[in-house]
């Protein structure tokens, strides 16, 4: 087991290297330039060159890449062009916000979606099923920014129960922090329920057809027991893969949510940095999310046998 983990970890290195090369190239292929943005409509060509030189952007690309990679290897991700801050602490600070929201939202979503999917599958093609499918589809067709804004207007403005902008770290004031983070989590949970319900419903339908379920029923086991003992664990397996995907993907895709709720998270940092062509931050963020993603999926794969006893972790 341990050697498996070590092997898997070793294999993350090529993935990360691939990400590093791809990001480095792509971010420089996109037209636009951090110095131009700083100087705006008054950019004097000589001044642009001078400032780019000072930032090390005038070196040939392979040289820049080698320099950057060399520093990354010793844990130095460089400094932001936008505001001169070191990238690593900046990212870690922002990640705390995004990571917490994503983790909690996915957890709550799974808590609701997996039983809902099971229920729908159990009553397949009956009114309950149709209602659950329709509900999930509705949730799927609402954009995050729309739902987020709706909740913000309702609970923040109309009812005045929750603050509309800002963020307080948990380390500072637990109760306050909770108030600021409730709406984003609810929004994200609702969005994710849509996908997960459909996935777990499909998986449960599959399992319900398998022979051993028929056997279990034939043995006279009560329906509840059949569902809980035989269907749920097996139906959960594909959903579990999906959870890994969602967790990894959300970190990149959470920018919209963070924009709506004015949260200083990693997603917004990334999007802002892409728009600002802040190369060191974009590179750092992507490498970081890639690492998180790879780790999450390692955990997912390691846990897979727990839900699907037929698969052994090699």
């Amino acid at each position, binding site marked *: 087991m341990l050697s498996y983990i070590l092997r898997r970890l070793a294999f993350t290195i090529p993935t990360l290297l691939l990400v590093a090369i791809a990001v480095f190239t792509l971010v420089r292929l996109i037209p636009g330039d951090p110095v131009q943005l700083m100087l705006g409509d008054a950019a004097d060509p000589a*001044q642009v060159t001078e400032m780019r030189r000072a930032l090390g952007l005038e070196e040939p690309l392979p040289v820049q890449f080698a320099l950057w990679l060399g520093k990354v290897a010793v844990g130095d991700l460089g400094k932001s062009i936008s*505001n001169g801050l070191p990238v690593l602490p900046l990212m870690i600070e922002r990640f705390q916000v995004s990571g917490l929201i994503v983790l909690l939202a996915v957890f709550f979503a799974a808590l609701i979606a997996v039983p809902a999917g099971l229920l729908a599958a159990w009553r397949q093609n009956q009114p309950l099923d149709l209602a659950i499918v329709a509900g999930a589809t509705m949730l799927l067709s609402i954009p995050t920014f729309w739902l987020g804004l709706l909740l913000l207007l309702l609970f923040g403005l109309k009812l005045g129960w929750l603050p509309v902008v800002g963020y307080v770290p948990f380390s500072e004031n637990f109760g306050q922090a909770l108030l600021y983070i409730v709406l984003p989590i609810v929004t994200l949970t609702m969005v994710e329920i849509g996908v997960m319900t459909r996935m777990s419903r499909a998986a449960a339908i599959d399992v319900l057809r398998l022979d051993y379920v028929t056997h279990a029923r034939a043995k006279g086991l009560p329906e509840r027991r059949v569902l809980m003992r035989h269907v749920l664990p097996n139906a959960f397996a594909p959903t579990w893969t999906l959870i890994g995907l969602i967790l990894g993907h959300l970190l990149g895709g959470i920018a919209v949510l963070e924009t709506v709720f004015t949260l200083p998270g990693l997603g917004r940092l990334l999007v802002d940095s892409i728009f600002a062509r802040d190369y060191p931050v974009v590179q750092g963020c992507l490498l970081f999310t890639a690492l998180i993603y790879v780790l999450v999926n390692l955990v997912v794969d390691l846990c897979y046998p727990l839900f699907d006893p037929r698969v052994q972790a090699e």
Partner: protein
Amino acid sequence: MPRRHALVAGIALGLTLAGLSPVDAQTGTIRLRLKNDIRSTDPGTNRDGGTDGVVQHMVEGLVAFREDTSVGPLLAERYDVSEDGKTYTFTLRPDIRFHNGAPLTAGDVVWSWRRYLDTATQWRCLPEFTGGLVKVDSIVARDDRTVVFTFDRPSALILATMARVDCGGSAITHRDSVGPDGKWRDPIGTGPFKMGEWRRGQYIELVRFDQYASRSEPRDGYTGAKKVMVDKARFLVIPDAAAAKAALVSGASDIDHDIEPEDFAELKARPSLKFETTTTMSMSTIIFQTRDKVMQDVRIRRALALALDTHEITDAVTAGTAKANNSVIPVSSPYYTKVQAAGYTRDLAAARKLLADAGYNGQPIKMLANKRFKSSFDVAVLAQAAAQQIGLKIDVEVLDWATQLDRYTKGDYQVQSFPYSARLDPALSYEMVTGPKATQPRKVWDNPEVEAILRQSMQIADRDKRQALFDTLHKRQIEELPLIMIYNEVQIAAMRKTLDGYKGWPTGQPRLWGVTLN
């Protein structure tokens, strides 16, 4: 009204001085919305418009723009210009202190300017003072209160350039603003606010500077009296317009000095809010690449100009707040006269004829726009619709701002819906668009004769002579059509009714002095 004003202000001030305000920890802090986090606190270097607005609350230069966009003394008590226009002598006001308590001396001015003129500082306006506009020959402290600048040639724009907001107002800072390693730390300036806490991505908070030496004249642009009537000013970073709107309505922020026109109608219905509109000098334009094989034909450019109803477009894009203006000279400029008011009038028949004469046969023209500055996108859509009526086919391509700016800087486009930032002197406005494309591809108007006229307007100081030159420039701009100027942006500030004394001005930058919270 003014008396009540003063009374309220007096009470507020009295209360805060007496330290009776802890109950009102909220009302002691004014909260203004920023669209993006600031980039740094180093004036005129790593900056953007929002950064300038915050930093100018903490630092001040020798001179500054007044409300009417003329230049007046700020840290200087007065300045004297020599006969040949090459030597400027500034006398500092007495009793000015930095935030660390140190008195301001001529030596600080010399130190600050040496830092700006060092390439390592990467001062945005360095090119202007190393030959672009003039070259600084020397800066000498004659005594503690007198500084003498000598330049290689005279120019009408020296003070206006020093005062430029994007140059950081050439602010004078204390040398301890910089660490022993030469790196910028925090601004130790002379402004009415000093640096408080900066939580990246969330807010930057400034604290009132109690020893601030205010000028005695009334508030006037970035100069005049700067009386701070709040304890703290907090600039909240709220990128999303809808969230900012919610923050304002719910009272989580006190003022948004630049709301989107499309939100205006909705917010007007809120009883807790009031508004202030100001015409700024930013320009909303359609620029042409005159080297493009289609757009080089002035008849096609004119056809588009004649197809547009600039008044109607302006009205639609700015929710009826702005006035159409076809001149590069801003409507709020003292140089904007009847001459500048003459622009294009819609004439579809003439436009169609021009297209036919030019032999245009339906080839699509690509117009670049962005959504970072929403007016750019709106203008593009409306221009596209107008062009359709005369059979001119325009495809709008929406890019992210950095990409559009890159295409602009490289001159790589046919047509763009482009927002220009504010320039406070007509010569600077023209300078922004005029120049040789060979060395500066971003320039849209490449005509040596025009450049010569412009250079003249930069050197002479006589108002009437300058007006005559600007009139010529305007007529030629309408004639040669390197761009279609559409309107000068209007800034709509929305604030809670509890806030008093806020006023916008042509730079579009917010000022939180002279403002009270009840």
